[in-house]
């Protein structure tokens, strides 16, 4: 079609579906939905070409609320379904919506494999550190000793860190965002969209019903600046309400050390500059606990490599080209295949 460009640009609202949004009042999911719709408008997404695939959970209801193609599938399996869809049609814009339970409990294996294969998609993991839809059991990201209906005396599992896990799986794009930090979230979503391959975004999402305020130490206005560092590529790793805190390298320990510029003779140029292509730095940033060190958000790691569908498609081209160079005639269909090899006439 030649008139594509002439079509009026879609707004965020044009991506809203007719379905009533049914999350609890105050749920962080609303903010994420808002940011995604805005991003779709800004990147000029085509509705018919955009697909949201989700598993099961509060978060996984997401596809019902956007006006594109969608598949609200089964618990934990969205990455596998999305991989199949991308193999069928590599031109789709694929978004995967998952939760901390959906993506890291039942779906951990598929998440690992879509990341290592680098299938072109954006994976939004809504981390509320709880199973929302099933009414509040602790999840694989819940703090140690979380009390919940299935752990009335406190949970005993050491939580997994989603970003660290993604890095361990060989992810090429790893980011962290906060539901309410719309500007940063929007920027991350755009960067993820631009990244070819699997982009993994952990979004800290508040569940006011079952796990209210679990992230507030680093997301509330009052403490945010001092307990969260928003990293940006090629910018110094500084933070703090007066922006005078920063991270320096603690070389002998292969570690990051939080410091205050001006104190103990720390100079601004000692502060590390964020390099989103450095996986070790990403690993260190992801590990900062939020207790003695700030929680890092933003794009921790972003290294481009060809996506899975790309190499799949490329291989087919190569095979076809090679087949054409062979002395035997190239096969144009299954009928030719059937007639190759040892045959005989009766």
């Amino acid at each position, binding site marked *: 079609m030649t008139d594509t460009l002439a079509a009026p640009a879609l707004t965020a609202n044009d991506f809203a579906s007719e379905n009533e949004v049914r999350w609890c009042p105050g749920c962080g999911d609303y903010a994420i939905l808002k940011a995604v719709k805005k991003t779709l408008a800004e990147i000029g997404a085509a509705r*018919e070409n955009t697909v949201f695939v989700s598993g099961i959970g509060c978060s996984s209801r997401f596809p019902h609320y956007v006006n594109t193609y*969608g598949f609200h*599938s089964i618990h934990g399996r969205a990455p596998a379904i999305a991989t199949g869809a991308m*193999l*069928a049609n590599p031109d789709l814009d694929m978004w995967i919506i998952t939760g901390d339970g959906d993506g890291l409990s039942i779906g951990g294996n598929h998440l690992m494999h879509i990341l290592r294969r680098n299938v072109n998609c954006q994976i939004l993991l809504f981390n509320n550190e709880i199973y929302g839809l099933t009414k509040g059991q602790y999840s694989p990201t819940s703090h140690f000793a979380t009390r919940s209906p299935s752990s009335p005396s406190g949970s005993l599992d050491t939580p997994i860190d989603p970003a660290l896990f993604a890095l361990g799986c060989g992810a090429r794009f790893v980011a962290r965002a906060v539901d309410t930090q719309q500007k940063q979230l929007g920027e991350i979503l755009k960067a993820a969209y631009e990244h070819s391959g699997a982009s993994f975004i952990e979004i800290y999402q508040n569940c006011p019903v079952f796990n209210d305020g679990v992230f507030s130490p680093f997301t509330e206005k009052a403490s945010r600046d001092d307990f969260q560092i928003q990293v940006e590529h090629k910018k110094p790793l500084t933070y703090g309400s007066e922006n005078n805190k920063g991270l320096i390298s603690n070389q002998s320990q292969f570690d990051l050390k939080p410091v205050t510029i001006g104190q103990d003779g720390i100079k601004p140029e000692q502060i590390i500059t964020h390099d989103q292509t450095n996986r070790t730095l990403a690993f260190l940033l992801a590990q900062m606990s939020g207790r003695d060190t700030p929680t890092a958000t933003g794009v921790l790691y972003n290294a481009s490599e060809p996506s899975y569908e790309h190499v799949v498609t490329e291989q087919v081209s190569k095979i076809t080209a090679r087949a054409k160079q062979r002395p035997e005639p190239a096969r144009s269909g299954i009928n030719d295949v059937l007639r190759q090899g040892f045959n*005989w006439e009766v």
Partner: protein
Amino acid sequence: MTIVKNDDKIILIIKTKVPALLDKTKRQPLETVVVRIAGDSGDGIQVTGSQLSLANAMQGSDLATFPDYPSEVRAPVGTTYGVSAFQIHFGGRDIKTIGDEPDVLIALNPAALKTNLERLRTGGLVIIDTGAFTSRNIEKAGYEISPLEDKTLDAYKLIKTDISKQTLAAVADIGLSRKDSLRCKNFYALGLVYWLFDRQRESTYAWLQKKFAVHKNVANANIAALDAGHAFGETLEASSDLAGYSIGPAQMENGLYRLVTGAQTMAWGLAAAAELCDRKLVFASYPITPATPILHELATLKDLGVVTFQAEDEIAAACAALGASFAGALGVTSSSGPGIALKQETISLAVSVELPMVIVNTQRAGPSTGMPTKTEQSDLYQAAFGRHGESPLPVLAARSPADCFDVAIEASRIAIEYMTPVIVLSDGFIGNASEPWLIADVNDYPRFGHEQIIIPEAFAPFKRHPKTLARQWVTPGMEGLEHVLGGLEKDHVTGAIAYDPENHQKMTDIRAQKIAGISRTIPDLEPDQGDTTGDIAIVGWGSTYGPISRAVTNLRNDGKAVSHVHLRHLFPFADNQDELLDNFRIILVPELNAGQLLMMIKATGRQNLQGLSKVSGQPFMVREIEAAVDKILEKIND
């Protein structure tokens, strides 16, 4: 007893205990013969077998073969569990089974003799490589004294010769290492078999020359061994009363043939189906014995646009297939019982969202890991009833290697025309066995899945075709038709999440009616052999087709009123099935399970049923079926 010695190298013994079969003056004609070749995994048994098959095919004999691999990947040399075997039944009439019992056993080492001799019919011929009967090997096989030196072989005819030594001699000129030279001994044995049954060597020459196009001396060595084995047969003829046998060509329809395994035809049938409906084939699978060869076969078809995906597990494979269908491809997944178990939740999702999908189960012996290399038909329940909720879906079964091609196309057609997952049952026997196939022409098959016209204004995701009750297959990329699918219950028109009781009842009913309605597109059931009325109808499905068919032929030749009714469609049944079965006094249902189809037919209200169950990992023998029939006939004719 006659003993003829020839150059001290071979001894032909004809035991007087069994009637002498051999004719000095000329080849003895045989209608069919069953040959079993056995040796160490490293002995090239499977290659030998497939060459023998090819040579037979080229000479116009019909045949059926089955490779019998060890379950270990490569067990230590000389052990019983490292024995690999290949059985072939060939002859001058149509061949339907691999034969109840071998007539000829080629044992390339003591372990092969140990594990295979019991199968041989009394009076059969054993060919032995004495060079491999070293005391170490004899011990490894678990013999206390050499079976050549006690009564072990008394009931059989025997050709024993030092094949190893003679092979070394035959290839001496070529300059291969001793080890490589010895690896030709299977072709020496093959040459002897060729002589024995008057098979031509040309196809094997050709195959060797192609296979070892770059290693010409390997090709030449094998050819030399083949010729030497054949020459040895000729000397046998000259020096003994063994003149060999002759096997005529079978009556076969005219056309172009090739040898195929069920794994190949299943793969090709799926690729053909994708062509017939103009869709990309996305085949997603996770390796498992004995299902993997389908993946291997399809992985070689990338130049045709076939996409194969080796997933991280069976769940992912099923999901990827469903995701592919969601995005507009023909999504197919494949596994064996334990893997299918893992796919059921996804298959139930496919039932719920009503997307096409084909699931191929190459069955093996269960429960649990069971006996992966042995065959069984025990996943019928799993296919028909193995999901949670009311989630009916069509189940089809292939009956033979060649049949897989048509079944794959039929399953894909139903999946797309009815927007439903379809389970296809094959088994390890069908997948690995081979037989000649009159090569199909894809253009002879009706195209499908092209009728759908979508009017955007009138589109709703769960509006249905008035006749098939199928919804429309609208896929991402189509403008203006955006919608969301999901596994929660859906409004019967809009597809929106719906908890309304009447709607759920309606959707449950529609899903059931849609699948039940598929029986309309199934051709009426007719006896595969025999009349539409009689004493006994043997109702079978899947790979028992061959033995049942042969048994019915034999029984009918004896004048018995027995018919063979074969079911391809196991769910739903053909509309006239009941009517047809009403015309028989007894329905006999032989199955390689504890009676699963039997139960399903019982549940239709039928009373005059009898099962014949075998769960040993082995196919039926023809005579087991004949015996069951005779017993019934005795009773009802009392």
